[in-house]
């Protein structure tokens, strides 16, 4: 599998967020602020985000790494690294 680019990962994250929280405007998300402060995600939504990203990108995300996905920037960096 070819390595994931930042753009691919970013697009996958936006797709996922829009599917789970349709009211979200991706352009309004501050990349270095915690996502869960900006998007109303409960633990069930967050688990769905992880499942979607796993399906779209093929990246294994252990529960102990959930903290890496706290902000948009850190999530992109983490998923590119793991992809």
């Amino acid at each position, binding site marked *: 599998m070819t390595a994931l680019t930042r753009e691919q990962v970013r697009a996958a994250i936006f797709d996922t967020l829009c599917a789970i929280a349709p*009211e979200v405007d991706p352009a309004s998300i501050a990349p270095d602020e915690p996502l869960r402060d900006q998007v109303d995600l409960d*633990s*069930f939504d967050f688990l769905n985000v*992880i499942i979607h990203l796993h399906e779209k990108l093929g990246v294994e*995300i252990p529960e102990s790494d959930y903290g890496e996905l706290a902000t948009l920037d850190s999530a992109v960096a983490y998923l590119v690294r793991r992809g």
Partner: protein
Amino acid sequence: MHEFRMPSLGADMEAGTLVEWMIKPGDEVKRGQAVAVVETQKGAIEVEIWESGTVERLVVEPGTKVPVGELLALLRAAGEPVAPQVEILPPPAPAPVSKVPSPAVPEGRQRISPSARKLAEELGVDITAVQPSEAGGVISRADVERAAQAAQAEKAPAPPQEAVTGDWRRQMRKAIAAAMSRSKREIPHYYLGADINVTRVTNWLAEENTKRSVAERLLPVIPMMKAVALALREAPEMNGFWVDGAFRASEAVHLGMAIAMRGGGLVAPAIHDADRKSLDQLMADLRDLITRVRGGRLRSSEMADPTVTLTNLGEQGVEQVFGVIYPPQVAIVGLGKITGRPRAENGTVVVRKVITATLAADHRVSDGHRGALFLAALGRLLQEPEKLR
């Protein structure tokens, strides 16, 4: 002949609008099958039928607003002969469209309960304009409340046909307002809270989840749900309904899960027999339920059945939630955020993962001592997570 009637999908429901039939005359239906979609204040609900048989006749047309208890369809039981049309068909009554009470003064003398008259005075409702819910019946407090709401709605610029197409969010707010007002008016709540050490169960869950693929992972609330359901078996006064001035305990534990809707509003549909389900099954059921709350349709049995409610508000950092009981239930269990807190154990201070569990219960049914036993049982069950499977 079985009569399929508009079910009550919660204490606050008076009528629903039939949106769609999922069956047609001549179809075989099975007990538990979803047969119609009904729009309520809490969204579109798939209504199940509780008899098996053959559909004889659909009495109500889609688009009709139907009061709770009105006939929707006729069903022929297995083996029952097809009755000649003349016998089974009373002249098709005009579809029972319930309207917001109109200001017309009903014919004849009004019969009004004293408390309804008093309420009308309090609310500034013109009692002569109130109509009873049944033609010729006695005007009740509920009728007055409805008239007051209708008057309020007339003042506000309400879109037409709001039950079907319109301001659904306002409808839901009204439904919650009605149920919660009734709860606070009628139910003498008492409140208890206990800090529970959940270090073992959270560690056990983290370990369990490392073995699972992402789609099979369990949320922290899952073992909590199971423990709550099992603890209710030990405290049957928390599980059931207050009906007609008496408590009716429920054998089954149908756990109502308070689920927030995107953009506001709340429903608390049931996970049936939560005490008998595995954690995997509870997770699958919760996933299905939340997905349908937020995007699809709930089923009538899920709306009508909960014997108790669980509200889990820890997500946003809330440590304690003291709930308002959803009538006719008699208890609501609250869970807050799991936090690391210092605790004294054997003379030293250690940091443990702790959750505050709360109980709001109906004092007509139980006393604080019984409520305390429930929370103690919950705490005990959460110390042995491997037994919760």
